[in-house]
């Protein structure tokens, strides 16, 4: 499929479709109603999570969505724990650093594999791609032993290092750099730019939608990462949000309204990110799908 076409159809996705029939067509009304009902069903779990986080324990198990006696007590309880803000900041810091690094390097590697002709290119590409198939669970123990020998345990770097580059991002960026015509790069070369400058100031700006989509993917992934931060951190001051939240469900105790509050607090930031970057996310996913 031609690249311009991909862009066009991904962009088209952001607009409402041109309807073939008039809006008063009964079939269209039925279709819309069913879709709207489906959409409501889809968001129900999120709605119930939010609703439960505003309820007192006694009302937790009722079916009503609007609490009879809404309370912010659960939030006050969860947020009164000073550590919560620290965990939030840790998660934000870790997710931000890994995102910046991964976007930078994935774009760099993707570009090198796409635009340079050199021996070993295919091997490097296949090697990187093959890491996609290695389950993280397999690497946790060797990573831990490695962190010990390098003194990375209980440090921010220790939490971050496994995600500093991603094979998925490299693959995605390589696909997107194929949409950048070689002529542009050639012209820049004639203008006397070196290869790094060409990449940074010519090629990168042409794939910004892909970069932002990738950044969002990686940020979300790191925001919710659980197993590795748990294993590599010892001090509570270094916990990330998901790890910290597990301390709310201590030994065999389940306070559902508090868990729902914690779940809501972990979800709300990603919902905000979505509302801000909605266009980029939708377009990025669409292009990834068409190119993948």
């Amino acid at each position, binding site marked *: 499929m031609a690249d311009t076409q991909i862009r066009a159809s991904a962009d088209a996705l952001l607009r409402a479709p041109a309807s073939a029939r008039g809006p008063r067509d009964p079939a269209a009304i039925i279709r819309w109603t069913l879709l709207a009902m489906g959409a409501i069903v889809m968001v129900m779990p999120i709605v119930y999570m939010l609703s439960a986080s505003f309820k007192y*324990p006694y009302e937790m198990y009722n079916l009503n969505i609007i609490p009879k006696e809404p309370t912010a007590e659960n939030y006050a309880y969860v947020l009164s724990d000073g550590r919560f803000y620290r965990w939030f*900041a840790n998660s*934000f*810091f870790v997710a*931000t*650093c890994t*995102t*910046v690094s991964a*976007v930078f390097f994935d774009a760099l590697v993707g570009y090198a594999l796409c635009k340079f002709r050199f021996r070993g290119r295919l091997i490097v590409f296949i090697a990187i791609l093959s890491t996609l198939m290695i389950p993280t669970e397999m690497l946790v*123990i060797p990573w*831990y*032993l490695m962190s*010990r020998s390098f003194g990375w*345990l*209980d440090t*921010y770097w220790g939490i971050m290092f496994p995600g500093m580059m991603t094979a998925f991002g490299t693959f995605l960026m390589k696909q997107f750099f194929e949409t950048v015509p070689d002529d542009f790069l050639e012209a820049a070369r004639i203008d006397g730019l070196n290869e790094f400058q060409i990449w940074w100031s010519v090629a*990168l*700006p042409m794939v*910004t939608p892909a*970069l*932002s989509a990738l*950044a969002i993917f990686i940020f979300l992934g790191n925001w919710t990462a659980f197993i590795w931060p*748990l*294993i590599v951190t*010892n*001090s*509570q001051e270094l916990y990330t949000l998901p*790890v910290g939240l*597990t*301390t709310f469900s*201590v*030994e*065999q*105790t*389940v306070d559902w309204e508090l868990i729902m509050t914690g779940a809501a607090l972990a979800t709300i930031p990603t919902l905000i990110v979505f509302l801000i*970057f909605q266009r980029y996310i939708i377009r990025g996913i669409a292009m990834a799908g068409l190119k993948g």
Partner: protein
Amino acid sequence: MKAIRTLTLAATTSLAAMLSAGAVSAVEIEYWQYIFDARITAMDKLIANFEAANPGITVKQSTFPYADYRTKVAAAIPAGEGPDVVQLFYGWLNDYVQADLIQPLPESTFPAARIEAEFFPMVQAMKIDGKYMALPTAVRSLALFYNTKLFAEAGVTAPPATLAEMVEIAQKITKKDGAGNITLEGITSGMTAQDHQWFREVLLRQFGAVPYTDDYRTVTYNTPEGVAALEFYTSLEQTLGVTSSTFMDEPQAAFKAGRAGMHIDGSFRIGALKDTRGLEWGVAELPAGPDGTQSNYASYWVNAITTKAQGEKYDAAVKFMDYITSDEAMQIWLDTVGELPAKPSAALTDANIADPVFGPFIKGLGYGHATIFADESGQRQVLVDAVSRIFLQGQSAADSLAQAAAAEQALLDSYYAK
């Protein structure tokens, strides 16, 4: 790109905020335990007292979620990371000794003869090759919690003394909706919680079976008596209908929410229940068996000095160990966590025995058994599956118990073959 630049800026700012390091004092030792609010508070008090008495030493407490604690400890100590003094479940001791991860307590501060004279006899399991490797601050046992409000509503005046009375009371309390679903449990149940301990060390013995040989390496409960015990346990849900193992997800949650009349749990639950508003409850000894046999399951967490502690850290660790196994520390632990002192001298005070809450637990210690686990979660799973097979697949209690015994024996064999 603008978004990325903003993110970078934010990252730099938060990095700067986090690079505020504190000053380092003379000797700092690290203590590890799992997260349980009351235990952390208690340890904070002990550390404060200890630091006040020993100005040159500071103790840093690190805590981890219970579900991941063992993973954490097992991964960190061999890595030369982590604690100087560590809290371990008593059943894990052999592993740590064999792997050379903890060192013996010095004979000068902890003479074996004194330990044996002062501590409950079950602590002798901590002696390996004549040396004590670890010591507990507190021990735990099981008891029956009951909801006094529900008892009064059902016209029950006293907690049950026997299993038969327990069943009778449970039947009076249980409520069901029109479709036959339980809305109020007579008694909670769940092999995934404490019931596997209750079954293994209490019910089996009460029905005349012996769970294991004395060294806990051979399963001996696959007998008609064992089957009778299992049949009794499953009848609570299946024929008597006074409990449901899936009710409110977890037994203690049901009791805490006032939706269950009785609940068997450990002394560590006291703290959480005390804080529950609107819940009126009492504690009784575990009901006696058909022939009057009383039994209990006792367990404990121990503190040990790791091989990481050397030189002045070792000396500090010894002092710390000495303090946290003192009578004073044990009383603080009892008052804060509700776990029972590990020494009869501190536990069996008149005040403690007469205490309506601690009393039944302390009496339970007198006839308690401490299972020596090879793999606690694996052995628990065996019993969880045994009950699941009966409930979900209609297997007979005899077949299910035989299968469980074989599975548990295989587990023990593979563990001790190492």
